[in-house]
């Protein structure tokens, strides 16, 4: 969840990168996430590590079953990182163009893959009785996961566009404000389609909601958060829009979690082989230690994240130290 919130917008900035054409504008894009993307990506590492420690069976099944997809994701993330660093180190136009394309394509591919992975967890993947993945790489590309892949791309792009509006000024910012509207519409479209598809094809996502009706507050807040974004944009409140976008992500992930609960990896076509939080978990002792570590670690991580954002607050100004 933290990963989606944080890396979401810098993947979104990457997805939009090729749509600005001049060197200065592209440098502004890269420098907007320049100081912070690395810390954001750390949340992915932490999430994977925590999954390994707390729910090793789920980690094993997902990471080995989705092996080729993960390799692809890894390569995409490597090239995103390298593109940011290498892009401005040479003056040649072809050099910068190659790395700009690399930055953007890898951001888009990463967003899609993350969404496809989530979609597969929800839709269900064939799991054998030993909880191992029994399908193929191409079997991961079913319609519902692909839909979630595009929704994630739309979400991250919207999140990224709101962020980049916060970080720019003048004529560039004016141009980008128009993009927020477009990305938001694209996202809402995807969101509606996804919601309908989920309700029609995966009714089990509703069982937890029905059992605990107070949880209905989550989708309500989700919709409110999404509605809040255009409201804030039209009033010129960039920060309000960004926070609403964060809230959207938060409640969307919460909704996903509630829908999946108690499953972690759903097995389709044999639901009895599903991995739940109960059969995939480590021992009680491990989980206890994990909780203590998380309680100590999370505040530390949050505090340094906040301090970095604070140090680099404000509009992007290109100087001799910029990317």
């Amino acid at each position, binding site marked *: 969840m933290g990963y989606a919130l944080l890396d979401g917008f810098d993947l979104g900035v990457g997805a939009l990168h090729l749509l600005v054409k001049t060197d200065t504008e592209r440098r502004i894009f890269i420098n907007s996430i320049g100081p912070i993307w690395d810390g954001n990506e750390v949340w992915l590492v932490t999430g994977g590590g925590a999954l390994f420690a707390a729910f090793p069976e789920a980690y094993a099944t997902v990471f080995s079953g989705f092996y080729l997809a993960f390799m692809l994701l890894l390569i995409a993330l*490597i090239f995103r990182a390298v593109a940011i660093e290498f892009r401005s180190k040479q*003056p040649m136009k072809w050099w910068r163009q190659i790395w700009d394309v690399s930055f953007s394509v890898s951001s888009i591919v990463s967003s899609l893959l993350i969404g496809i992975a989530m979609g597969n967890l929800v839709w269900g993947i064939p799991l054998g009785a030993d909880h191992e*993945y029994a399908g193929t790489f191409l079997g991961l590309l079913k319609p519902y996961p692909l839909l979630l892949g595009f929704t994630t791309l739309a979400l991250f792009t919207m999140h990224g566009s709101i962020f980049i509006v916060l970080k720019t000024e003048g004529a560039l910012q004016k141009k980008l404000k128009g993009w927020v509207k477009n990305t938001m519409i694209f996202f809402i479209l995807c969101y509606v389609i996804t919601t309908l598809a989920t309700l029609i094809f995966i009714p089990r996502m509703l069982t937890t909601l029905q059992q605990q009706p107070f949880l209905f507050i989550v989708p309500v807040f989700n919709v409110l958060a999404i509605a809040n974004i255009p409201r804030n944009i039209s009033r010129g409140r960039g920060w309000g829009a960004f926070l609403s976008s964060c809230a959207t992500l938060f409640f969307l992930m919460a909704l996903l979690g509630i829908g999946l609960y108690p499953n972690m990896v759903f097995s389709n076509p044999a639901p009895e082989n599903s991995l739940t939080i109960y059969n995939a978990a480590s021992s009680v002792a491990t989980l206890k230690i994990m909780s203590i570590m998380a309680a100590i670690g999370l505040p530390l991580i949050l505090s340094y994240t906040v301090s970095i954002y604070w140090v680099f607050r404000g509009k992007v100004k290109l100087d001799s130290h910029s990317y």
Partner: protein
Amino acid sequence: MVAIGMTLIAVAWFGLFLWWRGLLWKTRWFLWVLVFSVLLPQAANQLGWFSAEVGRQPYIVYNLMKTSDALSKTVKAGEILTSIILFGFIYLLLGVLFIYLLDDKIQHGLHMKEEKGHRA
């Protein structure tokens, strides 16, 4: 690996001694030693990993689990080989780029370069 570590410490101390005596920038042979000593930590690092990973066989968790028991059943050997080769190529590419860029910085200084090149 340990020998490399000791050597590097000795090199560092000797360099410190020369600096204290004001001779560091004048002792050319030592400066060359410093240039090539950069390779030593690389070697030490790799050798350390070799000894750890080879030495642990056939166990992945010493005395408790063999490596053959710890394999992912769903990942085929071909996939793993492909990904290792792929990573090899990627690292090679990145390594070459890194050396090229580093050399460029050393030759031409640290200032940022404005974009130039043909307009398509």
